[in-house]
């Protein structure tokens, strides 16, 4: 009986080969061959060193690292406060903090246009304070959009890992003479580490690869590596170069996945 049962796993296995594995192999095939002739080449991958591509990659890395740090700095206190309040009605509060995530991603980004664009509330307020020039089209606007979009992805795993800490552990630390600061730095921080790592990956990967935020808030002036790859596939249509650059991007994704796997064995911090 059991022997027959395992064949039920086969259909989806075939599906995964067709729609997960072969597609990834195809990226490598495209990325490592020449357009037209199909000859093996590294030139698509190495085109990352062209000035425009390299500048986009560096800007993407800088913005996504800053975005991840800012999210962490905003979200950690929020998660801590929510943890303290857990006896009361934190269910509702966490619901409120997660709710924006359920709004369509494009709408969330687009919503900022209403505030930042010429005539928007924030634009007008900054102008009154003497600020010159546009907000849309600056790195700051793109960063703001990234932080806004991915902040809930940081709050959630942090909240999950912090609420999983048993109060008894904290009480034990206090009984053994630790003051509140020590409890925080020596007990809470280390125990929440898996949540921190998973929050970092969940923010870093999408912000590194985004092309939507920079498209909508960058006023077509900001090119991230995601924009370059996207346009190679849709407008310039040199898929070979696009695939080669994706391979470079995948190296960074793989690194952050490896780090996540190393620290978060249970996958529990990702639970939603």
């Amino acid at each position, binding site marked *: 009986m059991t*022997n027959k*049962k395992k064949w*039920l*796993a*086969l*259909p*989806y*296995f075939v599906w*995964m080969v067709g*729609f997960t*594995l*072969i*597609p*990834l192999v*195809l990226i490598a095939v495209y990325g490592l061959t020449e357009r037209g002739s199909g000859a093996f080449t590294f030139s698509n991958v190495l085109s990352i060193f062209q000035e425009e591509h390299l500048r986009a990659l560096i800007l993407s890395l800088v913005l996504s690292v800053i975005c991840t740090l800012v999210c962490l700095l*905003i979200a950690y*206190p*929020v998660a801590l406060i929510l943890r*303290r309040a857990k006896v009361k009605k934190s269910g509702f509060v966490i*619901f*409120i*903090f997660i*709710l*924006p995530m*359920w*709004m*369509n*991603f*494009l*709408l*969330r980004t*687009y*919503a900022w*246009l*209403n*505030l930042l*664009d*010429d*005539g*928007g*509330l924030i634009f007008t307020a900054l102008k009154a304070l003497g600020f010159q020039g546009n907000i849309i089209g600056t790195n700051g606007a793109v960063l703001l959009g990234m932080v*806004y979009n*991915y902040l809930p992805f940081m709050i959630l795993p942090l909240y999950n890992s912090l609420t999983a800490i048993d109060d008894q552990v904290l009480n034990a630390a206090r009984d053994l003479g630790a003051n509140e600061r020590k409890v925080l730095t020596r007990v809470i921080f280390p125990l929440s580490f898996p949540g921190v790592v998973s929050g970092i990956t*969940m*923010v870093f*990967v*999408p912000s*590194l*690869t985004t*092309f*939507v935020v920079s498209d909508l808030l960058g006023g077509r002036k900001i090119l991230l590596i*995601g924009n370059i790859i996207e346009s190679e*596939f849709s407008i310039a249509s040199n*898929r070979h170069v*696009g695939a080669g650059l*994706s391979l470079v*991007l*995948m190296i960074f*994704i793989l690194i952050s996945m490896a780090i996540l796997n190393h620290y978060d064995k249970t996958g529990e911090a*990702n639970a939603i």
Partner: protein
Amino acid sequence: MKKLASFFGKAWLALVFVFLYAPIVTLIVYSFNEGKGRKWAGFSLVWYERMLHSSAIGDAVVNTLSIALLSALIATVLGVISCIGLSALKGRAKAVYMSINNIPLLNSDLVTGLSLMLVFVAVGLSFGYSTVLLAHISFNVPYVILSVMPRIRSMNQSTYEAAVDLGAKPIRAFFAVTVPEILPGVISGFLMAFTMSLDDFIITHFTKGPGINTISTLIYSEVRRGIQPSMNALSTVMFLSAILLLILTNVIPKDRRVKQKAAD
């Protein structure tokens, strides 16, 4: 001292709250603005009317909902079947299977979308509704498996065997014994797949043809041309529906401990 800390705590929460909701509230307010620009020109439902009469928006809504429903249904059937098969697998084979299953969850949507596009090009499928549907099924099954698998694991195998021993055919035993036990996981998997499909933009963007739009891709092409107030109206309706859906899904299954990835 403690009071001061709690005051700062509350102030911080309030600040973050304002940050999260200010754009959404502005968007909702503007959706009722009579004028097209940023100046308040009086209350009006004109953009809602425009939205209801736009065939582009209507088509996009129908596409989005039907793709979400179909892809979630197919993904749920495929996911449940493979979970049952997986429960009979052990060791290495199972671990490899689960790792491949996790790839779309961990990978960037950009790479997933591009790679699916390349496969459709290689096979020679014409881009349109069916390619989007296939892509959505592909990224939905992992969510179903992750929410059904724990249920199957914690299930008592002997009740199923008892049913078979007592003369039930395997199919009957499955529907009478297994299904009721795993149902909460199946429902939450289905709902998660449904919402993931609704929310997706990037993968759809790369797998759709020129003639077809979902709500996300429509917003993208509209917004790139500048502010479109009827998009504000559409956003408001969608946000309120999302709240409604979320309340419903949180009331029905209490079994939502499955991974959600950075959907973008």
